[in-house]
């Protein structure tokens, strides 16, 4: 089985990798986890909001796309 390609992309981030994973579900979880990891680091470094598209491709075809967002805001 050709590897799954996982891409996390927004206006300032573009990161990708090919994974040998056993199922599309695993690849989708990995895509979401990747975006959350990148996003939480951005927030920890002072950004109030992170949003990105997490995408899973297989054999050149887009299997799934997600919007992942994380934000922090002070309570009034």
């Amino acid at each position, binding site marked *: 089985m050709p590897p799954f390609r996982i891409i996390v992309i927004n206006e300032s981030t573009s990161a990708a990798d090919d994974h*040998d994973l056993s199922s599309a579900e695993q690849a989708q979880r*990995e895509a979401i986890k*990747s975006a959350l990891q990148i996003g939480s680091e951005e927030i920890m470094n002072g950004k109030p909001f992170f949003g990105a598209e997490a995408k899973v491709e297989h054999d050149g075809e887009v299997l799934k796309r997600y919007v992942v967002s994380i934000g922090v805001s002070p309570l009034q």
Partner: protein
Amino acid sequence: MNDTATALTLQSLVSKLSYRATLDEADRAAILSLPFRTKMLERNSFIVRERERATHACVMLSGYSVSTKMVGTGNRQIVSIHMKGEMVDLQNSLLEIADHSVQMLTASKVALIARQDIVKLTLDRPAVGLAMWKETLVNASIFREWIANVGRRDARARIAHLLCEFSLRLKVAGLGENGEYELPMTQEQLGDATGLTAVHVNRTIKGLEHDGLINRANPRSIQIGDWRKLAEVGDFDSNYLHMAHDEPALQ
């Protein structure tokens, strides 16, 4: 079985252990005359799996291997990397039942040495025993550093730290000079070593490249552009490697 053509096969082990203790000619000869057999191992194959009985330790003659632990979710943590000249699995072979797996990162040639022959050598040649003891202590020091890396540093520092460590260890193994080397791991494997997803590793490496700390002619080649800055970002102090050599002189 040894043959004439491979009489110096264990020379890299002699060199490695000479780092750790003063060995005389008899010590060196005793290491070189250890009974061993060489074996070619494919990428991803195992030398030993966790919970198996480990009967041999091995010396890496070429290629790379990693020690790994699997967790209940099926995720893998790479806990150390082994390269040419290093003795892999001394712990497992002496403790008999493997508490971690050792897997090839690349196709590799190894020399397998039976556990009882290692024990006999260390009892017959105390200086060699001391060198092996120190080697396991240095391995433990590297484990401690990796725990600190994964547990308390951010992604940028984790990757920068690992790139600095690779640079120094590959230099000692004769596989990299002046901060230039072929990265022994894929992004996915770097992720398994640093607790990051491969995509996050990809982004982090691109960030280091963008900031001029490293240069890459291709995805696996690394040239450290600014050693001091990379070491600073990675919170890297080579003390834990207990090397005789100093950090590479870079521009």
